[in-house]
């Protein structure tokens, strides 16, 4: 396997907004042709303000939306051209953890079924094997096996996020896209989830694409950082380099705006 998981080349995404029957549609350029790569085993963070295109990038990588132009090479293969079966295979290798653990879990399903769903859909495992695997995953994310039969509403935000993480791990993915996984959580719970994500990365050799607007969190967890602004990449550097020598004006502004406890 190669060192580079993703190679993203000149990725573009435009949205058309219809203003009316006889008016020309307005074009919103969410991504202006960005290029970067993701190395195996690293944590690459995308940071920027709302509307800068970081979530759009994630959606394109996950094949939730189609790019207007450009290429996304996954282990050397352009995923924008994948068809049926290949696409299914690709989707098993790439998982996501969502921001809001309250709306991303089905309230009518039990924890066991939520975590087991990817296994049910994508593998030929028997029910009993699935249950075994789910209990193993629950242990890995620090959940009690007795909670198998519980519903999401019986859990706090941090615990729900653990359910989401267990589900993302179910199919042994190569890469997990974490879309603001801790920004809906309290600081103390946030610390627990960050610790968990780092532990799991070690154990399962995961690669993370980490999306966040909280630079203190990003500094703690990342290897490299992509700073985005209005659909463009303004800076891409290792964490140390970025925090020590920010070059772009926007990065400087962003860094100076972090409210930290240190003077």
């Amino acid at each position: 396997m190669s060192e580079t998981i993703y190679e993203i080349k000149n990725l573009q995404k435009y949205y058309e907004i219809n203003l009316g029957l006889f008016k020309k549609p307005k074009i919103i350029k969410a991504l202006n042709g960005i290029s970067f790569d993701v190395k195996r085993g690293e944590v690459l963070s995308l940071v920027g303000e709302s509307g800068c295109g970081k979530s759009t990038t994630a959606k394109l990588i996950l094949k939730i939306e189609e790019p207007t132009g450009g290429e996304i090479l996954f282990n050397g293969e352009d995923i924008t051209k994948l068809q049926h079966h290949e696409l299914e295979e690709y989707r098993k290798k790439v998982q996501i953890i969502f921001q809001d653990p309250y709306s991303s879990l089905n309230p009518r399903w039990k924890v066991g079924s939520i975590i087991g769903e990817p296994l049910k859909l994508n593998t030929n495992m028997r029910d009993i094997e699935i249950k075994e695997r789910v209990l193993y995953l629950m242990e890995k994310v620090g959940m009690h096996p007795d909670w198998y039969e519980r519903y999401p509403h019986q859990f706090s935000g941090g615990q729900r996020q653990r359910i989401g993480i267990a589900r993302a791990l179910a199919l042994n993915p190569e890469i997990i896209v974490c879309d603001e996984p801790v920004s809906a959580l309290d600081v103390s719970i946030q610390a627990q989830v960050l610790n968990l994500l780092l532990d799991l990365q070690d154990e399962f050799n995961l690669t993370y694409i980490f999306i966040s607007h909280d630079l203190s969190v990003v500094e703690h967890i990342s290897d490299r950082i992509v700073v985005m602004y209005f659909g463009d990449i303004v800076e891409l550097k290792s964490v140390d380099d970025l925090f020590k020598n920010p070059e772009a004006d926007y990065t400087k502004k962003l860094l100076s705006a972090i409210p930290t406890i240190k003077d």
Partner: protein
Amino acid sequence: MKNLLEVKNLKTFFYSDAGVNKAVNDVSFEIPKGKTVCIVGESGSGKSITSLSILRLIDHPGVIEGGEVILDGKDLLKLSDAQMRKIRGREISMIFQEPMTSLNPSYTVGYQIDEALRLHQKHLNKKQRFEKVVESLDLVGIPDPREKYREYPFKLSGGQRQRVMIAIAMACEPKLLIADEPTTALDVTIQAQVLDLMKELQDKKGTSILFITHDLGVVYQIADEVVVMYKGHIVEKASAQELFKDPRHPYTKALLHSIPIPGVTPRKSKLDTVDDDVDYLSFPKEIR
């Protein structure tokens, strides 16, 4: 008199079939004139309920069971509903967390700021009120205030909406501004602007601010005094300087160590967490 507001032994309980939830249990603190007091705590610590209790905005099944909230010598908990309505918006006003949902989408921005003046400044005529609204939009840093008067909230960005919320709250020049997580929904750069704005308004008008947040970074930036709440109780109270230099209560320490600080916390190291198994209330309160 040094203190604008004194909260003494405030108790707010919620009653349900499952039992009594003592959301705010015997909480006392003071807000000095012209200063910023921060209440910090996690969700469920009772910080928002404390602020709502001050304004007496607690709804069924919640009941303010006891205590005193003394503003300029009068106990707000003893006022009639009609008297209380005159306090809200005029002497104490509030900014909420979600600027997207706390403005009415079907009225213009100007109309919504004007509402506070219509209710509380009845001696002003229409023209005077218009000028005052434009002035307050200008004060909170909205460009072209005369144009923006007629805009609807959907045309404004999140930061601008929060500025409008602040303009509404400041319209009657209240003595106390309660801000419940006013910047949590905003981007960091916008957050910095809004915090600067609040400080600037405080300097100009001498308003006291009660700021509720879970973000200790924000607390460090703006607080004079800090109140740390945990499960309905105050566990530590100190000036901001003392609290960050020398946190004494185990819960405060755990909270402070759970956030990574760029350049200080070793990268990818285990962060301390608030331990669910520890009964932090068993430690003595640290009130300085």
